[in-house]
């Protein structure tokens, strides 16, 4: 098992491109997931069945099936149907990047919705009652008290979810996307040096996840600055 450093160095720029695509996938799917999670999570926590049913089903499906199956369903499965291929959505669904992004966003949206639901339910009742007693309307309580508090509670779990998305992005390589893992597999197919290339790829992922962890630690520090012991 010889360690051919020169081969690794020559492919470094290619891997860098792949890493950039990975980062884009993670950032955009996480943002889209959050946008999706708010209506989903709120709908899910509603006591009314008519409001609760669809979000519940959505969350049940996307949390209960593997991401790989979801990716294949969206990428290969939808393309099976003529009405999809002739619709206006086709230019988007044609592109593996968009298929991956959409699937990842739906998937993470379901998980974040559950995180949000748990966080909303963990908001101390006392704070909500205080808001009501001051005369705030329900929506104002939601906007000013529940949601900000819930976001603060949810942040650690959300940061976990984003790291998970980073790792899920590797699955996009199975639908021809040349993110980090896809790039690595293509290089290995040409050079037959799996161990060396995967080693470098692993390091890339560790670096990216380290950066993400640091970003979230900074965010938590800032959001909780009112709780920090003063000088």
């Amino acid at each position, binding site marked *: 098992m010889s360690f051919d450093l020169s081969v690794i160095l020559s492919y470094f720029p290619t891997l860098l491109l792949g890493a950039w695509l990975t980062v884009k996938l993670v950032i955009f799917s996480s943002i889209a997931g959050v946008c999706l999670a708010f209506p989903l999570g709120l709908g899910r926590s509603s006591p009314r069945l008519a409001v609760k049913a669809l979000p519940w089903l959505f969350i049940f499906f996307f949390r209960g099936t593997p991401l790989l199956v979801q990716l294949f369903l969206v990428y*290969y499965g939808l*393309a*099976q149907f003529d009405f999809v*291929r002739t619709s206006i959505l*086709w230019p988007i669904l*044609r592109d*593996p990047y968009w298929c991956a992004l959409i699937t990842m966003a739906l998937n993470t949206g379901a998980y974040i919705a559950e995180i949000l639901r748990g966080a909303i339910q963990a908001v101390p009742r006392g704070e909500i009652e205080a808001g009501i007693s001051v005369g705030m309307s329900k929506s104002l309580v939601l906007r000013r008290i529940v949601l900000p508090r819930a976001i603060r509670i949810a942040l650690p779990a959300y940061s976990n979810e984003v790291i998970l998305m980073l790792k899920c992005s590797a699955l996009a390589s*199975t639908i*021809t996307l040349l993110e980090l893992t896809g790039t690595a*597999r*293509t290089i*290995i*197919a*040409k050079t*037959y040096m*799996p161990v060396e290339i995967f080693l470098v790829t692993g390091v890339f992922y560790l670096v990216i996840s380290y950066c993400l962890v640091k970003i979230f630690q900074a965010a938590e520090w800032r959001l909780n600055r009112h709780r920090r012991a003063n000088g």
Partner: protein
Amino acid sequence: MFMKTLAIAALAGLMAVGSAAAADKIRIGTEGAYPPFNQMDEKGNVVGFDIDIAKALCAEMKADCTIVTQDWDGIIPALMAKKFDAIIASMSITEERQKAVAFTDPYYSNKLQFIAPKTSNFDPAKLKGKALGAQRATIAGSWLEKNVKDADIKLYDTQENAYLDLSSGRLDAILADKFVNWDWLESDAGKNFEFKGQPVFDDDKIGIALRKGDDKLRLRLNEALKAIIANGTYKKINEKYFPFDIY
């Protein structure tokens, strides 16, 4: 004392396993996702031209063969790790591969040719900006990467996935082995597609891959191959799959 006994027992077990391998058993690796050369039927068995050739060669060598499926990306590493002893999976003899493995004499010839929808005016001379598909780690994939600079090249884990995307319109064309394409064009799924232009690569020979240094097996396989060509078995297998001669 106990640990010593355990270690000796383990070693003895390992040796027993190893010596069993000395009997005339040959394991053959194939992919199983490359119709009509190797594919899975609905019962989960591997069938196809490659399989028939493998069985014929083994019968000729009077050896006991088992066929193992392996995904394409890992097939050469698996051979090198001794998961099987030979690869009969329509593998082209290329200089790059010959750095890693040894090949027998060729058992058929191949060309690379584009296929595209009948209604399209796809021209192999004008590839700029087109979406082209091929299977990863094949000579078609390498050809595209070496010769086509400004097109959207997509590489797939399996040939079948590439065909799915050609059918759905994600790809403008696929570059693949001519006979594999021919088989797909003959099927229901491929009836709206056709070959475009002349083959872009003409001189491809398909051989059986072996570990370097495994000369005994290589010579036996070469002998067996000559024999089945001479006695008409090869021709029979050829005719079962193709109305033309592919040797």
